[in-house]
C-alpha cells in the first residue's frame, strides 16, 4: 500500500546499499528520546513551568493579615509595633486565645490590643480577656463585642465622607497631644469620653470609658503602616498603646473558632461498615477498569491511501471568483461555454465562430439575430445582473436543444 511504496521511493533504485546494510534504527529509551527531541524539550519546559507554578502556590507567603505586627504591607502594623518596641514597650504577638491569655497573665497589668474583625470571640472569652488585661484597646469593634464587654460604649455609625480631618474636641490628654487625625472610612462610637467627633455628631472616632480601662478606636488607618505618618496618627497610636510597659497584640483568627459542643457529624451517626463501603466499591471499580481496559493485543496499523474529491479544484475556483467579485471573468466563461455547446448542438463543427453560432441559433429559433447577439454579448456589471443573464443564457440553450 502507500506506506510500502513511499518507502520504496525514498530508497533510490540505483543505490547499492540494500535495506540489510543500512544501520539498524536504535532501540531503547535513549534512541527514542533522540528521535523525539523537540517533543522531549517541550515536555521538559512544560514540567519546569508547572513545577515553578506549584512551588509558587505552595511556598509560605508573607503575613497579609491587616494590622498584624509581622505584616510590612500598607495594611499591616509592623511600623507601630517596631516604634513601640524601641520605646521600651514589650509587644507580644498572640497567635490564639490561649497564647493571649498566658501573655496577659504573665505580664503585670498589660495593655491588650484586640482587633476582632469577624467577631470570632464569644462573650466568656471576651470577659476573660478583659479581666486579665490592665487596659483594653479595641479597634473597630463589632456591636456584639461591645455588648459582651458590658461597657457603656455603643456603636454609632460611620464617619461621614465630608469630614476628612477630625479635631480632638475633648479634654483627653492623648487626643489633645496628638492633634488632628483622619476620619477616612472610620466608625464612630458613643458613650464614655468621645473624641474626634464629626461635625453635628455626639459620637466620636475615639471613645474611652469612664474608668479609662477601655479605649475604642474607630479607625484602622491610625495604626496601619500606610497611615501612621499622617496627621497625628503616630502620636495617638503610641500614646494609646504605650500606656504600660507590656502590650499584647491579639488578632483573633479562625483558629479560635469555638468548635466545642458542635452536633455529631454524619460520620459519627453512620454504622461501622459504611466507612468500608466506599473504599471497597473503589476497589471494585478499579478491577472493572482493569477488566475492560485490557486490550486483546495491540492496535493494527491501517495504511490509508490519499483520496481527494476531484471537484474540489472547481469549487475552490468558484469561491475565488465569488470573493473577488469576478463578474467579468464569470461572464466570459459562461459565454464561451454556452457558445461551445450551442455549436455542438447545431452541428457547426469545431471551426465555428461566435457569429456563426449566434446566427444559426437565431435562425433555428426564428428570432432576430440581433436579439440573440445582444443576449449573448451582454456585459452584466453587477452580480444580480450576472445571475439574471446566466439564467437567460441557460434558457436559450434549453430552447435550442428542445428544437
Amino acid at each position: 500500500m502507500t506506506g510500502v511504496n513511499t518507502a520504496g521511493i525514498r530508497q533510490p533504485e540505483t543505490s547499492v546499499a540494500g535495506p540489510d546494510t543500512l544501520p539498524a534504527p536504535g532501540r531503547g529509551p535513549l534512541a527514542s528520546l533522540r528521535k523525539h527531541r523537540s517533543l522531549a524539550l517541550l515536555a521538559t519546559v512544560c514540567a519546569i513551568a508547572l513545577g515553578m507554578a506549584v512551588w509558587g502556590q505552595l511556598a509560605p507567603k508573607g503575613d497579609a493579615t491587616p494590622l498584624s505586627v509581622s505584616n510590612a504591607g500598607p495594611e499591616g502594623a509592623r511600623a507601630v509595633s517596631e516604634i513601640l518596641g524601641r520605646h521600651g514597650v514589650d509587644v507580644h504577638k498572640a497567635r490564639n486565645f490561649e497564647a493571649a491569655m498566658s501573655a496577659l497573665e504573665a505580664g503585670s497589668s498589660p495593655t491588650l490590643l484586640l482587633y476582632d474583625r469577624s467577631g470570632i470571640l464569644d462573650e466568656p472569652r471576651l470577659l476573660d480577656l478583659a479581666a486579665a488585661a490592665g487596659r483594653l484597646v479595641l479597634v473597630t469593634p463589632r456591636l456584639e463585642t461591645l455588648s459582651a464587654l458590658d461597657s457603656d460604649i455603643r456603636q454609632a455609625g460611620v464617619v461621614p465622607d465630608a469630614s476628612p480631618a477630625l479635631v480632638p474636641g475633648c479634654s483627653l490628654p492623648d487626643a489633645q497631644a496628638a492633634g488632628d487625625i483622619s476620619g477616612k472610612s472610620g466608625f464612630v462610637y458613643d458613650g464614655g469620653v468621645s473624641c474626634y467627633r464629626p461635625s453635628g455628631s455626639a459620637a466620636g472616632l475615639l471613645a474611652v470609658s469612664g474608668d479609662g480601662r477601655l479605649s475604642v478606636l474607630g479607625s484602622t488607618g491610625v495604626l496601619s503602616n500606610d497611615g501612621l505618618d499622617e496627621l497625628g496618627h503616630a502620636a495617638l497610636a503610641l500614646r494609646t498603646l504605650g500606656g504600660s510597659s507590656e502590650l499584647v497584640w491579639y488578632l483573633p483568627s479562625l483558629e479560635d473558632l469555638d468548635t466545642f459542643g458542635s452536633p455529631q457529624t454524619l460520620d459519627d451517626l453512620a454504622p461501622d461498615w459504611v466507612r468500608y463501603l466506599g473504599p471497597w466499591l473503589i476497589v471494585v471499580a478499579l478491577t472493572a477498569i482493569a477488566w475492560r481496559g485490557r486490550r486483546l493485543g495491540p492496535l493494527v496499523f491501517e495504511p490509508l491511501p490519499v483520496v481527494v474529491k476531484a471537484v474540489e479544484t472547481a469549487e475552490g475556483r468558484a469561491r475565488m471568483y465569488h470573493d473577488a467579485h469576478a463578474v467579468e471573468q464569470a461572464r466570459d466563461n459562461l459565454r464561451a461555454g454556452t457558445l461551445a455547446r450551442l455549436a455542438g448542438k447545431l452541428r457547426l463543427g469545431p471551426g465555428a465562430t461566435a457569429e456563426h453560432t449566434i446566427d444559426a441559433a437565431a435562425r433555428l429559433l426564428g428570432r432576430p439575430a440581433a436579439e440573440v447577439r445582444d443576449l449573448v454579448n451582454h456585459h452584466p456589471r453587477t452580480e444580480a445582473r450576472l445571475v439574471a443573464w446566466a439564467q437567460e443564457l441557460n434558457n436559450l440553450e434549453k430552447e435550442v436543444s428542445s428544437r
Partner: protein
Amino acid sequence: MAISGRYVLLVLVGLVPVLLAPGWGTVLAVLGVLAALAAADLVLAGSLRSVQLQRAEPGNVALNGTIDARLTVRNDGNRRLRGTLRDGWQPSAGARNPVQDVDIPAHESRRVTVRLQPVRRGDLKAPHVTLRSFGPLRLAARQRTMECPGAVRVLPPFHSRRHLPSKLRKLRELDGKAAVQIRGAGTEFDSLRDYVRGDDVRSIDWRATARRSSVVVRTWRPERDRRVVMVLDTSRTSAARIDDETRLDTGMEAALLLGVLAERGGDRVDFLAFDRRTRAWAGSAVQGNLLGQLVQAMAPLDAELIEMDWPAVPAQVRAVTAHRSLVVLLTSLDGGAPEEGLLPAAARLANDHVVVVAAVRDPQLGTMLRDRADATGVFRAAAAERALLQRAAVSAELRRLGVEVVDAEPHQLPPRLADMYIRLKAAGKL
C-alpha cells in the same frame, strides 16, 4: 496478564464479609484471598511460551467477496490451553470474527477460521495474533501477542464485466462468425461461405457464385495479432475521487474490460502502471490467464503523490513493443498542465502508434453548470464551465495531433473505451 468479568464479580462479592465483619483486618484478609485466587489461576493457566502458530495463505479474493483465513494453533505445553484468540487483521480486511474462544488440550492443535470480507483493494495484512490463556477458574489470564504475519490480496472488482458479453458479440460480428454480416466490417479476406438471408448483397462474390450452384459471400475478418499497450497513470492526479471511486479504480475497470476484449479479439495485450517508474506490468506474452495476471498486477496499486513522468512514457512503450500498436493512456485531462506533459508525449507516441487517451469526466461539473439560482451558483457554474472548457481544449488539441480521446463519466468509461477499440479494429487502423 488480564482478568475476567468473573473476577470483578468476585471482588464485588468480597464486599459481603467486609460488611458483615467491618474492620481493616477483614479488608486485608479478603484482599489477600482475592490476590491468592488470581495468582493461583495465573500459575495454573496454560503456558503461552509453548504455543506454535501457523498461518495458511488465504490467497486472493475479489473486493467485497468473502474468504476464510485459517490459522493453526498448536499447544506444545503440558497443560490444557483455554482462552481467547484474536487474529489481528487490519480493519479494512473486514474480519467478521477476529476474536474467538479456543480450547486446546496439551500437545494438540486446533484450526481457527476467521471470515474476511475486505472493503479495500490491495494487500491487506495481519501482523500478529494475540492469545489469552485463562486458568481453571477463569478468573485471571496470561496474555501474549505473537508475530504471525499474514496477508490477503484483494483484487479489483471488475464491475465492467457486465459489458463484456455485448462487446464480445460486436467483436464476433466483426469476425464474421456471426451469421449476419455487415460489409466492410473487417479488412482482411477470411473465407467464402454460403449466402444466408440478411447478408449484405454487396459482399456476394460473383466469381465464386458462378462456379457453384448457390450464392456465395466473402467474409472478412478484422486484423489479428496486433498489439494493445495500456498505460495506467498512477501519479497524483489519479488519487482524485469522482463519484464513488478514484480515477485509478475507474482506469483499472476500463483496462480490465479492454484487456479481456482485446485478448478475445486475438490481439496481444500489455499493461503498464507508471508514474515515475513502473509500478506494475502484465501482458499476454507470459503464459497463463491474462485476466488473472491483470488483476494480480493491479491489486496492490495505489495513487502516488508525485508528478507523472510523461517524457519517459514513449520509451516505456518502446520497451514493451517495437511494433506499431494501439497505445491506450488511462489518465486525466485536467489537473496540472497537460500542455506540458500529456500533449508532447501523446504527439510523440502518435508518430509510431495509434494512441487513445481515456479520461474520466466528473459528472458533478455538469450539475454545477446547471444550478444558476443565485450568485454563488452562477460563480460555481462559471468555474465548472472553465474546467470543462479546459478539458475540451486539451481534447481538441489531442484530436488535432491524431490522438483519439475517450472522455466519459466513470461508469461509462469502460464500455466507451471498448467501443473505441472495436471501432478502430473495424476500421483496420490497428
